[in-house]
């Protein structure tokens, strides 16, 4: 789609109407660039052919780093003076596992947050671009890109698919 394309956002009341509209828009050769919705929807993600989330990899990486760091911290600190306390071995693996476990969870969560922020694209200072405030409340917004010449026929199509309102913005 060229950079002078026009983005038309059609607003729909239910997820079912939204899915039907996406299907019709795509069948008519238009490109659905984005859908804004008040709740998550696997069906919409499938309709837009979105790839599986990669947040889990961040979480896993964080968890591994945390497990190793937790053990490393406990071993490092215990071996600074090699003092036997309460008759326990210097390297007491079972107590150290508790530290490693807590660090695993901590770092996995930090990795998870990093994953969410980077994959979701937050913070997003340009969030208002092509966004309707109604989409955080009760409506679903389908963004469709169109060359300037075809805007009217796209509007007609959105109207036919049951769009309540249409917002026009330049890409």
């Amino acid at each position, binding site marked *: 789609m060229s950079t002078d394309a026009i983005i038309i956002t059609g607003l729909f009341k239910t*997820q079912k109407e939204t899915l039907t509209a996406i299907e019709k828009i795509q069948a008519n050769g238009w490109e659905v660039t*984005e*859908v*804004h*919705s*008040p*709740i*998550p*929807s696997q069906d*919409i*993600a499938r309709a*837009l052919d*979105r790839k599986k*989330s*990669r*947040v*889990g990899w961040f*979480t896993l990486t964080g968890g591994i780093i945390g497990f190793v760091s937790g053990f490393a*911290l*406990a071993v490092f*600190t*215990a071996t*600074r*003076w090699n003092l036997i*306390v*309460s008759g326990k071995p210097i390297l*007491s693996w079972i*107590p*150290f596992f*508790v*530290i490693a*476990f*807590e*660090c695993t*969870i*901590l770092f*996995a*969560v*930090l990795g*998870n*947050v990093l*994953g*969410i*922020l980077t*994959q*979701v*694209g*937050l*913070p*997003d*200072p*340009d*969030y*208002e671009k092509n*966004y309707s*405030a109604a*989409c*955080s*409340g*009760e409506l679903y917004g389908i963004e469709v890109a169109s060359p300037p010449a075809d805007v009217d026929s796209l509007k007609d199509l959105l109207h036919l698919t049951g769009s309540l309102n249409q917002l026009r913005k330049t890409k």
Partner: protein
Amino acid sequence: MSQLTFETINTTVLNTLTRPGKIYWGIIALLFAGVVLGASCWAYQIFMGVGVAGMNTPVHWGTYLINFVFWVGIAHSGTLISAILFLFRAGWRNPIARAAETMTVFAVCIAGLFPFIHLGRVWLVFYMLPIPNQRTLWPNFQSPLIFDVIAISTYLTVSSLFWYTGLIPDLAIIRDRSQGMRKKIFTILSLGWSGKTGQWLNYTRGYMLFAGLATPLVISVHSVVSWDFALSVIPGWHTTIFAPYFVAGAIHSGLAMVLTLSIPLRKIFKYEPLITMDVLESIAKTIVFTGIIVGFSYGTEVFISWYSQNIIEMETFRWRAFGHYAPEYWIMVICNTIIPLLFLIKRFRTRTIWLFVISIFVNIGMWFERFVIIAGSVAHDFLPNAWGHYRPTLIEGGIMLGAFCLFFFLFLLFVKHLPSVSMTEMKEMIHKTE
């Protein structure tokens, strides 16, 4: 539930965020005065020394650690509701999840204060942290007390992040319906959330992983708290059942606190269409379940001491039931195991007044459980010449009152400034039932 729409959910929740009246600020001022009283008592203790508390030889662990365990326990139910019930897809959790998560964050903060207070010389708190220093002195990571430092700080970090992550879509809803300074604040807080499909896809995956990580964490944290006691050799503490016993007790007290908070919240903010009687009934049924586990644990402790034929253990449990702290012991048994059984009768679990009153009894019972375990065991351990009694002083009472005031102060500030019911999760719930 069927008459709810996305719009009515938004309206109901956003109506709670209107400018508060004089009564609200009056209560806030009263609670703040309680916080100042608690802070003053703590300041007095710092100035005079920890001797102003009632702790003595042999009872070196008093109300500060009793309150620490109590507040950690309160915190646990929030994660149970927000994470464990989320993974089990229990729909009734949705209306109360936000309040429960918030309760968790505030309760962990307050719990975390008590080891500081108990420490006496609070300025030496850094000794508990692994900070590099010239003498290469490090915390002893074989000690359950240091497990606790790591576990509680992890729990505070995780529960705060989990809470904030869950808030983001709701913060965007408020942003889109605000103007002026309020809009600017919520624009920053919502991080530019716009509900794109890709955002939801990654967000829901991240949220599920959060829940998956918070679940083992919550179980580990209270297990670690229980090991503060169980890894010692004190009779009444040195037992293998402490971890599951503490976890069950934590959930029991936390659910009771959720009821204590949800019932006034529901009434004052007209949340009846969202927090339905079915939701409160489900909490009550879960309290019956956790109460039975707690009661079973009480019985098991006594059985273990008898079955072992260890005279020290047998004497500890005889003394608990019939000794100096017998009233506290029987308050614990009655409030935690007998009174919650009233919820087996439908009338008691479907009337808000009964739900509220019984939840208060459970809260009181769970505080006394910690008193009996902590003070009761060290007061009467191995040698009769080392036995003693413990009675909290007014300073400890003031600090405890301050902690309760701080909890309700923070919670009241929260309910008028941030959405106390998750609008997004409510919408998901009604979408699934449609």
